């Protein structure tokens, strides 16, 4: 059962690959961005699950709750920053897609390439 016990790594790896596949294989630019988002979210999960301590609670000193077993809060803080970065990237990417649609009238990769060749 050792393999199943590491299930959060499996979730991470599978999500990562689904996202990566979408980025590489899809020709629609919005779908590519969805893939990119998934790809980043997978990494968020990797960070958050690594900070979890079995039986640990949220690290808040309250009501004498000083000696309890705490989960590591640092990865969550890091990932808060990474989520902000991820959102900005997606937003900027979508903005570029809108501009591409305005200029080329399409958001399919091959059609854009064709229109530039002419």
């Amino acid at each position, binding site marked *: 059962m050792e393999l199943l016990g590491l299930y959060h790594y499996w979730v991470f790896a599978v999500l990562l690959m689904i996202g*990566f596949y979408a*980025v590489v294989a899809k020709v629609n*630019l919005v779908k*590519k961005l969805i893939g*990119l988002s998934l*790809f*980043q979210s997978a*990494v968020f999960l*990797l*960070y958050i699950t*690594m900070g979890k301590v079995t039986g640990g609670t949220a690290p808040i000193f309250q009501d004498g709750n000083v000696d309890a077993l705490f989960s590591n809060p640092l*990865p969550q803080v*890091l990932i808060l*920053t*990474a989520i902000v*970065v991820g959102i*900005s*990237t997606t937003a*900027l*990417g979508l903005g*570029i*897609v809108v*501009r*591409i649609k305005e*200029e*080329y009238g399409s958001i399919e*990769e091959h059609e*854009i*390439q064709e229109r*530039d060749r002419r």
Partner: protein
Amino acid sequence: MTDLNAHLPVLQVVVPMLLAPLVVLLRPRGLAWAAATAGSLMAFFIAVNLAGAVLGGAEVRYELGGWAAPYGIALGVDSFSALLLLIVTGASSAALLAARRSIDDAIESDRQPLFYTAWLLALAGLAGIVVSADAFNIFVFMEISSLASYILVAGGPDRRALPAVFKYLVMGTIGATFYLIGVGLVYMMTGTLNLADMELRIHEVADQRPILVAAGFITVGLALKAAVFPLHVWLPNAYTFAPHAVTAFLAACATKVALYVLMRFDFIVFQQNLAGHEVQFAAFLMPLAVLAILVGSAVALFERNLKRLLAYSSVAQIGYILLGASMVSVAGLSAGILHMFNHAFAKGALFLAVMCLATRFAGLDLDRLAGAARTMPWTMAALVLAGLSLIGVPGTAGFVSKWYLVTAALNEGLPGLLLVAVVVAGSLMAVVYVWRIVEAAWFATPAANEEVPGAAVTGEAPLPMLVVTWAVALGNVFFGLFTGVQRELAERAAGVLLGGLP
């Protein structure tokens, strides 16, 4: 009055970063440019001071908010980062000083404040990567600089920049995410994000697989950001269709900063702690470096667009830098780091000259540049001077670093001879592609030249642009003859990176 000198590392980032939102408000014409240029020059001034302090033997460390290092966020400047800071802030200042007319042509005046804001953010991000001593901060600054440079590249009037920047965004994000995975795995094993702390702790777990995986993720992710062949496909189009000023700025420093992080991580954190890391590093990157030099130069031979030709030549130059690093010796590393500095001058001057050309010639295809030498002799002379440095003609900066590279390769014994052959072959190809520019500009008969509408029919580029271009081009000669400061910094940097290794 507190002593500002102690705060220089953080001011290096804070000055451009805080200036950025202010620039948005500067609506009147020209004011945004003036503020951005002043901020950039100030950053350059700080970088010069830091380099002076480092050369004087000072160890520059800074703890944000006074929190001590493993828990607080530390900044640090050693000779390697000082050299990179000079490149980044210098490239930004030169490009901004020269670019006013070019940016006026490319971007409507009501969008200009936003453009300069993005520029300052890119500068702050790049400087932030270099001063950070903390793996996660490097990621954050990397994304700040990347997001800002996507905006800069997409800012121009050419619609082909948009698909190019989309590709750049996707590949850049994948690269940064790979780096993030690697940092996560290292954090999982060592419990620290501070690079110096990581170096101390990693040897306890160095034989475990996550560390090896982390080294792989970090190296590949940063190689993507640095446009190491074959991960360079985002670079040529992004450089070609970006506004000319942006190309001059980013081509001189953006990929080099990614290479800086790559070297720093691989040499300081992994090198001394992972068994066989140097063999893996060399075996992985040296073939890529050789291919980058050969393929990049070969493609440049056949490119018809001037900017794209220079972009492929950049791919080859990244190869030279990496080749020096992949020798894993002090001589090789210092040659590679020196080449970073010298190539920034050569490519910066070339793209500045391209910017001058673009004020008179609409298309930058080589066959449309016929007769350029007659109408713009000064611009073309600067372009050729920088081209000579790119080739590595004695007396120019390019020669110095290639000389050190060849010397370092010869120390490697028999395989070193092959590397020398690669460097020579790359330089010979550079002779050919620089000659193609010369041929187009001097010897081709001007057919129906397409002038930029509204521009003066004949004559040189605007004076400020030309003066800066010449200053940078002459820098190539100056640093080709006087190699003291940058060689000192590069050699010390190599010493720092290799630590105790001979």
